[in-house]
């Protein structure tokens, strides 16, 4: 499988990274090199092999339902590029 310019443009949009048209073509080459490389995996027979779901063989521990965090608006907003009246502010969204 390989990607073309359209596919790269599409995934760049999915990833919300602006890619100028002029940069699409070189990216096609770079990404296809990587994809060709990973294509090797097709040689491996993985019938009846379960995908790895966790690196450690442990079961997930359930947390108690206690309020242990929050009430720290100043910390939450401390690094925000734009915050007004206790909200994060972003360019207006039209739904």
């Amino acid at each position, binding site marked *: *499988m390989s*990607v073309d310019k359209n*596919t*790269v443009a599409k*995934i*760049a*949009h*999915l*990833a*919300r*990274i*602006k*890619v100028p048209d002029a940069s699409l073509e070189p*990216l096609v080459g*770079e*990404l296809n*090199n*990587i*994809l060709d*490389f*990973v*294509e*090797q*995996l*097709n*040689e*491996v027979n*993985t019938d009846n*092999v*379960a*995908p*790895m*779901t*966790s*690196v*450690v063989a*442990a079961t*997930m*521990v359930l*947390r108690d339902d206690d309020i242990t965090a929050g009430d*720290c608006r100043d*910390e*939450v907003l*401390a*690094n*925000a*590029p*734009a915050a007004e009246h206790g909200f*994060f502010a*972003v*360019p*207006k*969204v*039209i739904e």
Partner: protein
Amino acid sequence: MTELTALTLAEARDGLVAGDFSARELTQSYVTAMETATELNAYIVDTPEQAFSMADAADARLKDGTAKAMTGIPLAIKDLFCTRDVHSCSASHILNGFQPQYESTVTQNLWDDGAVMLGKVNMDEFAMGSSNETSYYGPVRNPWKASGSEKELVPGGSSGGSSAAVAAEIAVAATGTDTGGSIRQPAAFTGTVGLKPTYGRCSRWGIIAFASSLDQAGPITRTVRDAAIMLESMASFDPKDTTSVDCPVPNYEAALTGDIRGLKVGIPKEYHADGVPEDIEKIWKQGIEWLKDAGAEVVDISLPHTKYALPTYYIVAPAEASSNLARYDGVKYGLRVTGESLDDMYALTRAEGFGDEVKRRILIGTYVLSAGYYDAYYLKAQKVRSLIARDFANAYEKVDVILTPTAPSAAFALGEKSSDPLEMYLNDIFTVPASLAGLPGISVPAGLSQDGLPLGLQLIGRAFDEETVLKVGGVLESAAQFSAKPAKWWGAK
């Protein structure tokens, strides 16, 4: 008296406890050394004020008898660790100016034990790289140069600032993180010891994520003993990290008995890769001999899926990264490039904030997870990953530890491989398999190449058996008698 900066962590600890010098004096000597080493570009941010106040607190503890092994030890902290109110940007422009309101569990553990923070060190952006050339803050220069050459070399990556700082003696030791080799490979490139613990041994809480199922913090130090001491402080079970494992942290230093008689050491035939320089093969053979001489039994083993580790890694890691890095969108912290719409703002912010390698991996990761490709790439890779883990499990039925080279080459020149991503990726060929299986691995300096550059050997252990890895590492270290230091070419001006 020897220069304080020449002391190992263990020596510094003993000196502090004996009262030979104070934590403030030790810190002062590092702060001075750092000032003369700026051209290495190892540190992104120096925090001398913090360092001195921490050193004073350490001196108080040394006096009142509450000191621990790490008390008063000046450390360099990789920029990937969130440190409260201090620059923590993963060497990325997208986290421009970010100062977290919290402290990572690993660094908190170190501070609780009385360690001293000298500053935040450089790294590949978001830990994506093997040469420290993808940093927004510019490349780090390896303190080592090849004999007779003035060429600047890379310190390895992604923990290149950490490895360079330790090798240049501008930190006693440093924290690193390892996703596919980012502790072990830079350690090998700089003649230092790099230990990646078992996945789940150190908490990932407060460490800026690259690939969650692979990332693991560990120490880069001057000696195996130093690594043992520092890991004991860094490691803990952390209820804030679901993947951290509730398993007691042993006294690692006590494991360094030097006695490996009867221990079985596996030599995987698949690590005799094509194109690996003779130097590397030679040092590996040498390592095998040293362990034999120490009474270990050497066993030839096979890890049949080794070849597929790198392609597996280059699906799994970018996939996870593409999702982990979605939070950098200009809304909550870091860089924002204003756009006409919300989507515009996202796309412009992320285009400007991420470097080329990070973008490349986000795009690959986005692609392999996208509709119609998930099964062929991501699911396939996770299946192969199971097979790779199974290879190791089978091997550990026969052996106690595995010996391999750490990297397929010694340190290379700045810019030499940065134009070809794939060539760069191949640097991790020997370190990635253990990462995929979550196993502990250490790189120990074993000798010099023909060009006079350090070469490392890697030991891979069973899950949560860092003790064996350290013990065998200690034996290799003693046998290698590696005492070379880089000629100090920096700070002359």
